[in-house]
């Protein structure tokens, strides 16, 4: 197989990987906020439910979660799923898994903001919603950027797990070509692609961090 063919095949897989990455972030970042609210809720039932959810998401392999999400509609609800469900299952599994991790990161950030900020906002007359979005969240974002960058970079590499339900992302394709050509070359190229991908991610996150440097606290 010519190198150019190999690159174009891997390139196509890369697009799927990037798709999984972006869609997962799109859903899991806001979902994580709901998770953190649930985790900090004064309602015992909600809080316990969210704690169990986080425990399951963190305590079992993401690969297994992918399989469960993909096969559950059939085995649990006897629903026939179409071929496109593979990709949807990947997004669902990744999103709910990453939301659990992001939720805990948000919680650590929210709980680290001094009580005085809430009190100052309250006495000034801000509503709870205003206080959260105008006063607390911007400070939280600055504080949690480093751990969020960690998770985001892990997510880039985790997209390769989609191979387990045969979604043709980059790693799946690299493995297929590698088996067919009996060469490790495709895997090495995939490795370089992941590295470049993460380099871009780290660059973007660093840029955001720099943009937040105008204040301290």
């Amino acid at each position: 197989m010519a190198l150019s063919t190999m690159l174009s095949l891997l390139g196509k897989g890369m697009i799927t990987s990037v798709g999984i990455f972006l869609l997962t972030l799109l859903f899991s970042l806001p979902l994580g906020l709901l998770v953190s609210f649930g985790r900090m809720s004064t309602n015992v039932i909600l809080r316990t439910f969210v704690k169990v959810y986080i425990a399951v998401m963190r305590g079992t392999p993401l690969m297994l979660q992918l399989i469960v999400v993909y096969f559950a509609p059939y085995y649990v609800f006897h629903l026939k799923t179409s071929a496109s469900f593979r990709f949807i299952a990947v997004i669902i599994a990744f999103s709910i898994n990453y939301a659990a991790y992001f939720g805990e990161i948000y919680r650590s950030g929210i709980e680290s903001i001094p009580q005085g900020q809430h009190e100052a906002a309250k006495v000034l007359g801000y509503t709870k919603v205003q206080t959260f979005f105008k006063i607390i969240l911007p400070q939280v974002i600055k504080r949690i950027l480093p751990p969020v960058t960690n998770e985001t970079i892990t997510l880039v590499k985790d997209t390769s797990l989609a191979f387990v339900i045969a979604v043709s992302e980059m790693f799946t394709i690299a493995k297929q070509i590698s088996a067919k050509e009996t060469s490790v070359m495709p895997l090495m190229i995939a490795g370089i692609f992941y590295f470049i991908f993460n380099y871009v991610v780290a660059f973007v996150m660093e840029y955001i961090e720099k943009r937040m440097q105008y204040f301290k606290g």
Partner: protein
Amino acid sequence: MNLLEMKHVKKTFDDLTVLKDISLEVKEGEVVSVIGPSGSGKSTLLRCATMLETMDAGELSYLGQKAAWDENGKSVYATKKELREIGKNFGLVFQNFNLFPHYSVLKNIIDAPISVDHVSKEEAIKRADALLEKLGLSDKKNAYPYQLSGGQQQRVSIARALALQPKVLFFDEPTSALDPELTGEVLKVIKELAKEHMTMIIVTHEMQFAKEVSDRIVFMEGGVIVEEGTPQQIFASENIRVREFIGKFVG
């Protein structure tokens, strides 16, 4: 009518009774200092008055409007909406400033008037400029809190509270986090406000300042008001505890 009225306020944290039965009335234009040893309940009294803590029992009202009243020995609070309205009567200056670190000095001052009181941006900036000028901070308008000294931060936080044009301003040990030099600049600002007859209730350990600025001094200990009167009365008090406490500071 009294601007602030607190009647028979009681507050307990777990097993610790912090306020035993406190009544306090403050008239418009009055400057009242609350002094007393640490743990006497001064700050808790202030936090109950500003509704950061809920009272267990007792009454709280501003200009005759009841924020909380006593029913069978328990405080019952007004609705959230009513409390928000009543809350507009007062401002609070904290010991550790609590400025919003991600907002510039100007934004710290104008944001609440704009997003809480729906004042126009022009009007809010006009108010802020006047306050900054008055507090000698005009050149710090675009600075961020971390770029300011403690004294400057505290003056900004006073400006932030005043921008909402409250009827009474509470100070919770406003200079306790500052060195003597910075303390002076903050106390000067408070003295100027007193000259303009701004109603103020100040929890402080600065005895000399309390003596100079107050119309009335309240001495608290062990969750009760031990003595209350004009600075002259308090500083000439016959009460042994008051004498001891003040003596330590005045020498």
